[in-house]
């Protein structure tokens, strides 16, 4: 790999890390503003104009709070838990294609950190590891409520991972590739995959809510039943990492949904618009990246809208929805996709 590409990838890693943190920080602000609008309140308004400095104030507060380690907890695992959760939250962003190609000084740079040809499988591997952060943190707290919260969170995540994986299989049958970049490229001329896979997208969306522990599936946190949740014993920035990683997960899963089902960085009539405006290839790439982030923000707003609209599930309802509704539906979706593809002569010829 030439040195300038290596440097560019390192820079891109840094930029994406900072952007994920920034989006997650302002998602907390956005969440409070959104809730305020829905509940006819003002929301955060004191720190800066429109309360825009509120995330910074919150961060400072988190760092300044007293650090507490439970007396009889396992110190190493207690610290490892939130670190692992944060690490896995950030890791998926490496395979997401954030934009097309940039050509600077005769060298073509790709706005994706790595284009591994098993991108989707990598994503699932990382998501399934996210459970360890919660489980280790909950167990190491040496608190029965934390342990129960951790068990709840992790069994919910495992259950919905299955339906999520199966809903993607139907998509992969159509794309014929596991690379996220190729899936996005396939959508640049025609229609987005959400048109061909509406059921698959719906299942994926519901599972994404469950995987990120967002309402109406936020059963892992429950003040009335569990005192707090898996992070009952955590304080200061270690609690902050758990809460913050949730927002990063929301950002990343929105990015994944946009690239799998909503055309990624493509937008309708992009070549015509680029020609009409006389844009260069680099200019188009930048606009595409901005459009991509616009779509992601749309999904994040949808996450918030659902949270402040729907009441939460009961835990047994959550489990039976995952296993008895979504899993069979995902299997039916695979079956229908297979039959339609066979009827159209797309498979079964060789």
């Amino acid at each position, binding site marked *: 790999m030439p040195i300038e590409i290596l440097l560019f990838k390192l820079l891109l890693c840094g930029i994406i890390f900072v952007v994920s943190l920034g989006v997650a920080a302002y998602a907390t602000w956005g969440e409070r503003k959104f809730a305020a609008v829905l509940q006819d309140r003002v929301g955060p308004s004191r720190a800066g104009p429109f309360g825009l400095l509120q995330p910074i104030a919150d961060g400072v507060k988190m760092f300044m709070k007293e650090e507490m380690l439970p007396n009889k907890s*396992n110190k190493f*695992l207690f610290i490892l838990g939130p670190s692992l959760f944060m690490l896995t939250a950030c890791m998926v962003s490496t395979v997401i294609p954030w934009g097309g190609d940039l050509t600077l000084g005769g060298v073509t740079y790709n706005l994706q950190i790595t284009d*591994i*040809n*098993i991108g989707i*499988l*990598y994503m*699932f*591997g990382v998501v*399934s*590891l996210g*459970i*360890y952060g919660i*489980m*280790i943190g909950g*167990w190491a707290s040496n608190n029965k409520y934390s*342990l129960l919260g*951790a*068990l709840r969170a*992790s*069994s919910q995540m*495992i259950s919905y*991972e299955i339906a999520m994986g199966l809903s993607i299989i139907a998509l992969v049958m159509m794309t014929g590739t*596991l690379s996220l970049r190729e899936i996005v490229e396939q959508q640049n001329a025609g229609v987005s995959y959400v048109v061909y896979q509406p059921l698959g997208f719906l299942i994926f969306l519901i599972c994404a809510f469950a995987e990120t522990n967002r309402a109406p599936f936020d059963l892992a946190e429950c003040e009335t039943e569990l005192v707090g949740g898996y992070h009952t014993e955590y304080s200061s920035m270690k609690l902050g990492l758990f809460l913050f990683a949730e927002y990063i997960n929301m950002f990343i899963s929105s990015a994944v949904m946009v690239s799998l089902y909503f055309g990624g960085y493509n937008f309708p009539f992009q070549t015509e618009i680029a020609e009409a405006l006389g844009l260069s290839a680099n200019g188009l790439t930048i606009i595409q990246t901005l459009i991509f982030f616009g779509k992601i923000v749309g999904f994040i707003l949808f996450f918030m809208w659902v949270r402040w609209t729907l009441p939460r599930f009961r835990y047994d309802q959550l489990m039976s929805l995952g296993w008895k509704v979504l899993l069979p539906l995902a299997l039916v979706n695979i079956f229908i996709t297979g039959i339609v593809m066979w009827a159209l002569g797309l498979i079964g010829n060789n």
Partner: protein
Amino acid sequence: MLTEYAFWFLTFVAIFSAMGMILSKNPVYSVLSLIVTFFAIAGHYFLLNAQFLAAVHIIVYAGAIMVLFLYVIMMLNLNKVDEEKRSIWSKAAAAASFGILLLVVSAAIGHGHAQSELQSVADTSAIGTTETLGLSLYKEFLIPFEISSVLFLAAMVGAVYLSKKEQYN
């Protein structure tokens, strides 16, 4: 050259974390070091160009099976104190039987594949891609694949039956 360094690094990690899994007194640490071992082995698969196998190895073993192990250990809250004392005879029997197993496996590996054959497998870059693997599974080895999936189905039915049984009693 870089591949060789990666190989040695992964090998050391795999061996030491496997030893940590056996030697640590705390069962939770055992599970965590076993997960590290799985990662090192997945790295080896990557070096052999078997990306699909590496990813599935992480998803299935590290992501699903070890989580269930961790569940059981955390729920039962196993500690050093609870660990049952085993007699010297059972330890000796375990060591002997595992030694024999190791002998059989190493003899089978040494017999089955000549060194050159292993080398040639490692050199082809397309051998482990999802496409190649899928084609050979569904074309060449369709019958064994189907039979093993029937076996999994039987195991699943058994597991469901065992978990249902308590309700009726």
